């Protein structure tokens, strides 16, 4: 047993499709420590979102998964999420209670026909035995906390009257209102414009410090990683490539794919290549062989965990 809040051990996910089984994740293992931000970074299709959805068991019925996900809450028995049944009350308790999630598409993540306040307050009512008035008041307080001015009146509005950034704040409020120990953010800023992106990132980070919870942050953006994360998990093709502290992974990447990913960043890349001329070649060769071998469907190299 570890002291991490969340441990993923040997998680594999396959999807049944008309073309047969498609493997989305193979043998993914990593830990999410307490009171920190862990970023999972990788390109499209690398299995980041599948991993995060697997934690809350939100994968479609066509998915078959194996492996173990264990949640070790601060004050309570550890739960093996993967062994729970969909209808298990413990599962409902977990979703939105201990672990909650912020999604990529704020424009569609809220029900179009329910009032903002009702949707946020519902999260409270699902997990605690309080009166609707109390839930409503708590929702108002939470919405103020995520920076929605004049929350009381905004709560009577509908999502289509809100901008994307405002909706994402609502989704974050909804996720945090039951004080989850783990907040999963699945590319929460991808659909937003750059200024709003920065605001939302600052918000997530400051709330994490304030509420003392852990954040699992899914992104493809290394700039965001540098800004928000304490630890980084690099994924490619459904496998974990490298795990380390943000400083180590960004400054001193060990895996060829990480080097490749870093050198593909526009802007930062020139500076980065200049400084690490010797890598560029290595990264290029490394990435080259990496891709060839990945095509062959083999596991390239055991990833190395440098700084636990």
């Amino acid at each position, binding site marked *: 047993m570890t002291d991490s809040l969340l441990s993923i051990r040997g998680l594999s996910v396959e999807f049944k499709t008309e073309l047969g089984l498609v493997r989305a994740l193979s043998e993914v293992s990593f830990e999410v420590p307490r009171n920190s931000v862990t970023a999972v970074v990788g390109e499209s299709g690398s299995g980041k979102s599948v991993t995060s959805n697997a934690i*809350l068991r939100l994968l479609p019925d066509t998915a078959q998964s194996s492996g173990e996900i264990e949640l070790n809450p601060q004050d309570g028995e550890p739960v093996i999420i993967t062994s729970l049944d969909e209808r298990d009350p413990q599962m409902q308790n977990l979703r939105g209670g201990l672990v909650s999630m912020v999604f990529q598409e704020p424009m569609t993540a*809220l029900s*179009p*026909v329910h009032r903002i306040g009702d949707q946020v307050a*519902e999260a409270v009512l*699902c997990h605690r035995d309080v009166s609707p008035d109390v839930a409503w008041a708590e929702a108002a307080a939470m919405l103020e906390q995520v920076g929605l001015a004049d929350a009381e009146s905004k709560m009577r509005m509908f999502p289509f009257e809100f901008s994307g950034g405002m909706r994402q704040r609502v989704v974050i409020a909804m*996720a945090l209102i039951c004080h989850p120990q783990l907040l999963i953010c699945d590319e929460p800023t991808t659909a937003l414009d750059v200024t709003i992106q920065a605001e939302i990132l600052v918000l997530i980070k400051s709330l994490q410090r304030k509420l003392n919870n852990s954040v699992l942050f899914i992104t493809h953006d290394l700039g965001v990683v540098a800004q928000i994360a304490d630890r980084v998990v690099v994924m490619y093709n459904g496998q974990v490539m490298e795990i380390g502290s943000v400083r180590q992974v960004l400054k001193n990447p060990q895996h060829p794919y990480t080097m490749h990913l870093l050198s593909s960043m526009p802007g930062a890349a020139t500076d980065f290549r200049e400084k690490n001329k010797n890598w560029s070649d290595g990264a290029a060769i490394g990435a080259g062989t990496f891709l060839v071998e990945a095509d062959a469907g083999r596991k390239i190299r055991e990833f190395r965990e440098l700084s636990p």
Partner: protein
Amino acid sequence: MRNYLARRLLGMIPTLAVISVLVFIIIQLPEGDIVTSTLDRLSATGVDLSDDRIQNLRAQYNLDQPLPIQYLGWIGNFITGDMGFSYLFARPVNELVWERIGYTLLITVCALIFTWVMALPIGIYSAVRQYSIADYSFTTIGLIGLATPNFLIALVLMYLGYSWFGLSFGGLFSPEYLNAPWSWERFTDMLSHLWIPVVVIGTSGMAITMRLMRANLLDELKKPYVTTARAKGVPPLKLLLKYPVRIAINPFISTIGLLLPALISGEAIVGVVLNLPTTGPLLVQALIAQDMYLAGSLIMLLSMLTVVGMLLSDLLLAWVDPRIRYERT
């Protein structure tokens, strides 16, 4: 909202005016009129009328006036609540229509409720358990129901009812209650007859309602807000009913207005087969005999019901869906 309502109500006036002209033209389109069809019947029994008497008949029925005058006469009386005189039944149209339109609405509304109560849960189940055996079975049964003409189902039910139970399902009342005044016994007698037309007419809408509900719900189930609600910890059944079903049901509310005329006209053949005291068979008779006041007034009334039904369904939709409500203000 009040502005909107006033605008819609005012907008109904030109719509109904245009409909009334169309109705009148359509009724005039077939060759001949009530006098010629009366003459046909008379000559079939060997009676021939003199030209003078024919002219008199025409004058009596206002048929010697130009068409626009005839139209104005009809619509003018219609607005004041007098729908004219039925030559076929030799009674005022008002009497004929009012006694039937009540039964028509009763059967139509019951059939609509029957359709929804049966079809919506099946549609929801088929969507949630897509491609399951039950989904395929319901689809098959639904398509058979869709492909079978209503009157055939009515005939089969009548035959089975008669040959197995010795029951006669024709009409809405047993013979002894047909002309009796309203009483509790007459009411229960009506209920015991009512279910046959309700089932027969309701079945016709079931298949399409079922399939639409299934398709709508499948679309909604994929939407991210469903995942959000799941991630929030809403229990599965509550989630299904509160979020995707709530939204998938909206299109049905907007079709209530369209369903009314479809059910009423679909009911005509069933009404003839089952000998129901509804407007459908009356309209068919009136059209065959070219009884223009009766036919015209009936079609006009049904059109009005449709227009009002559309308004009602729009108001209902605005009530349940805030996106529509707010676009208007």
